[in-house]
């Protein structure tokens, strides 16, 4: 499902080269659940961005569902994301001007799916927010917003879902519900999960963990 080979990423900032990721290689089977662990600044989020095709590597390749991302244009990668990828962010990132239901509909509408509205309502009740269709993000609590974001992430039945510290802005209990939901959806839909976190409890629930430090893999549970 996901292969990365000798992946590196350097940035130029204030005239200096800054190496954030060095020579990362691993692969992940369909339906797998990977947790990427590491302290702040270890390169977790950068890796996630590269795996999801949000950015281009400085060296190495990423194959998502058999397709190499590095050779595609940004619009092309956007299309790949629209077809196969779901996202959940630490800061929820709901679009403030859209209602809960519309936020969930957006990825489906982008693909031109039929029945987006009814599926959005169904997903909302699945995450326990039935009847909140017309609420705006500002009218929802943090946990509720993340549940809407989760419903949005799964709305297109993605082959792979990337989550960046999905519980980072939530209290432990709310966080646990979110993780339960994610794991349940992963099981029911067969979606591959890639999760960035520094929450060890959360990492334990993943089938596989990769630990980063200073931009390199220091431990891989599958190795």
């Amino acid at each position: 499902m996901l292969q990365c080979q000798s992946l590196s990423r350097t940035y130029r900032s204030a005239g200096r080269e800054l190496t954030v990721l060095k020579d990362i290689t691993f692969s992940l089977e369909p339906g797998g659940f990977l947790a990427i662990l590491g302290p702040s600044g270890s390169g977790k989020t950068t890796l996630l961005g590269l795996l999801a095709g949000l950015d281009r590597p400085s060296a190495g390749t990423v194959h998502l569902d058999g397709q190499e991302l590095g050779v595609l244009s940004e619009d092309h990668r956007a299309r790949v994301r629209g077809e196969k990828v779901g996202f959940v962010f630490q800061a929820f990132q709901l679009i403030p001007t859209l209602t809960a239901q519309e936020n969930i509909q957006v990825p489906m509408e982008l693909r031109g799916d039929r029945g987006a509205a009814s599926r959005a309502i169904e997903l909302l009740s699945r995450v326990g927010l039935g009847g909140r269709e017309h609420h705006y993000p500002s009218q929802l609590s943090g946990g509720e917003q993340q549940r809407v974001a989760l419903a949005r992430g799964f709305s297109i039945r993605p082959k792979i879902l990337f989550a960046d510290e999905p519980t980072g802005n939530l209290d432990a209990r709310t966080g646990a519900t979110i993780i339960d939901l994610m794991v349940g959806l992963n099981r029911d839909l067969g979606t591959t999960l890639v999760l960035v976190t520094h929450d060890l409890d959360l990492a334990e629930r993943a089938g596989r963990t990769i630990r980063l430090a200073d931009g390199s893999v220091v431990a891989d549970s599958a190795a």
Partner: protein
Amino acid sequence: MKATAFVFRMAARELRAAPRRLLLLMGTVAVGVAALVAINSFTDNLQDSVRRQARALLGADLALVSRQPFSPAVEALLDTLSRGSRLARITRFAGMAYVPRTSGTRLVQVAAIEGQFPFYGEIKTSPQRAWSELDSGRHVVVDPSLLTALNAGIGDTVSLGEGRFVITGTVQSAPSDAGVRFAFGPRIYIPARYLPETRLLGFGARVEHEAFLELPTNVSAQALADRYRTSLLPERVRVRTVADDQRNLNDVLARLTGYLGLVALVALLLGGIGVASAVVVFVRQRSDSVAVLRCMGATAGSIFAIYLIEAGVMGLAGSVAGAVAGVGMQRLLPSVLSSMLPVDVTPTFSWSAVGLGVGMGLWVALVFAFLPLLAVRRVSPLSALRRPYESERSSWDRWSVVASLSLAGSTVALAAYQVGSWRRGAIFALAIGVALLLLWAAAWVLIRAMHRWLPARWPYVWRQGLANLHRPANQTVTLVLAIGFGAFLLGTLYLVQFNLLRQLSTAGGPARPNLVLFDIQPDQLPAIERGLRDAGLLHTVATPIVPMRLRSLKGRPVTELLAGTPDQPGGDGPANAWVFRREYRSTYRDSVVPSERIVAGEWSRPGQSPARVSVERELATELGVSVGDEIVWDVQGVSITTEVGSLREVDWARFEPNFFVVFSSGALESAPQSFVKLTRIADPAERGLFQRQLAERFGNVSTLDLSLLQQALEQLVQRVGLAIRFMALFSLGVGMLVLIGALATSRFQRVREGALLRTLGATRSQIFQVVLAEYFALGLLASLVALVLAAAAGWGVARYVFEGSFGLPVIPMSALTLLIVTVTVLVGLANSRDVVRRPPLEVLREQ
């Protein structure tokens, strides 16, 4: 297809959220469009009125005009043409009116009427029958202002030269009179058959003979005019038709409405800046949503389309609102301008002006939104995860070039449309481009300067505030451009207005002559000079005036020049035929006067042969002569051969006798001539007494009271000024909105910083001082640079467009600078009010 559906659905949702920031966009577009619709509707109405009232303006279908009595050939033609239709004649000249009962005198425009004039339109008099009964006796109908000036009333006897008439009524309205005409004296209508009794048509008097024809409906006036125009040229008869009048009038009015239209365009362009700054803020607000949409697979293009549609809809709404307001305001314009318009303007709804205004508003909204909106394409999906490591590069791609070019092209096109000339439109846009470039350079210098030379000894709050000007993500360039450009447009507008009005009002002066005596015959001159000397009055050397016409230029007879080149017989003749045909009232003297300057050749020396003439520079260009060319004049039937000795530049704005052509001494002394003298009598009563005595003794000598002319001019200037200020108000309004909008772009940055500073222990007053320092520096730099640019632009417009001198009003310009700096600082402080009003934690959490 699916992408299009998504784009429209998202655009509709975005609009539903009614972004408050974009209300500013709507507002600025609305005010600009309101100005444009008001002006353009007014222009349409004006042209419409001119078209509808043109026949009444001429009063007939066809008119023949000449400076000399019609020749037998012309009379024969008139006879033929008027068979089966009507003919009327008017003889116009200037003369002194004198009312013995009150001893009032006044220079008047006499019109001697013969026949049932006018055939179209109506001259309204009070009492109503005064006009129809004019011919039934020695009656006159006068302008009401004359009664006031002469302290006379209906029933009084007025003398004109040696004729005596009874005032039977006043003119309430005559369609053909523009306000400017009144400046040269009130009108007085007399029956033509009593004209000889006045004995005012002596030698040298400037008389205009007009014959008016009413044609049968199946005869085209234009066709007749075209047929006879050429053959009447040698007779020195001009043909006027309704269409000619309409065209001339439209030319004059185009200049007025062109200026007002440009003012409206400035308001709309300022509105464009308002749009751009609103969009900058909007894009910044939406960048998170954009990143998320990109993560979920939306292409850069479709996101761009969503927001462009949104800007377009808001722009359209603003334009429609503006058009509604403009239609309302258009009703005010005729009342502001009515006294200087030759026609009655009825405000009617002009579809074309409204459609065009809405179209221009929408276009400006889209074009100005386009460039800043391109930034959404550069929002990386990665920024949904975290702030990017690398600072965003605002790289120039194909679309930025397209956007910039269409912005420049639109400015040229809109300006060209409003002023009706591509060249002027391009100059206008070029000036704007140069101004933006220089403002950008100034901002760049400021950033470098603050980076290098910020003194470490200065108090912390000042250093903090000024350092904000060069720190990363600073707003210096954006704000200097927005504030500076607004200030530049406002400043230029003000300077143009100031100089326009100043130019109109520089007439006269405290010690200048205020009374002109003209048409003095040679035998009257000694007596008049003696009278002036005995009374101890200022008197200038008498200026001789010799009327003449051109006979030939450089060996070619004028008749040949008028008929066109020999290769094209029957051509319509040169476009400037008038300069060949007109009567020249020339003088002779042996020295240069202060109001003129030799620009080519040299002043004549006595005894040169042939006699030398000095020709005014622009006339020389029109005649196509230069130094050394031969000109033969027809002076009352006598040929005088001359050579162009020099070219002169003349300051016509001075109230002094100035001439197109000046002869060297010795050539014209024996020609038939009259004299002009200038004098000054400060006291109005004494001036009146002098004029009266002169009129009694020398009936043919006219006096022109310049102080009256000056008053009339001042009134005119005030009216024009009112109209100009009325329009400038629009620009000031939009300018302020734009300033507020531009400063709102900086709000996010500063609120967050302020909250952080407060968290770290800064007091409210310290925060205020930091903000004050930053915005004061921005406002001062932007307005100073802008006003220097405005001075340059104002000078250019005054010098090359209105061809006058340029003055810089220091106090108002300083006031404008102060106003801009104050508003900048106040809006900056208002932007920061959240920081000091609310607890810092709340602000930080929200961001």
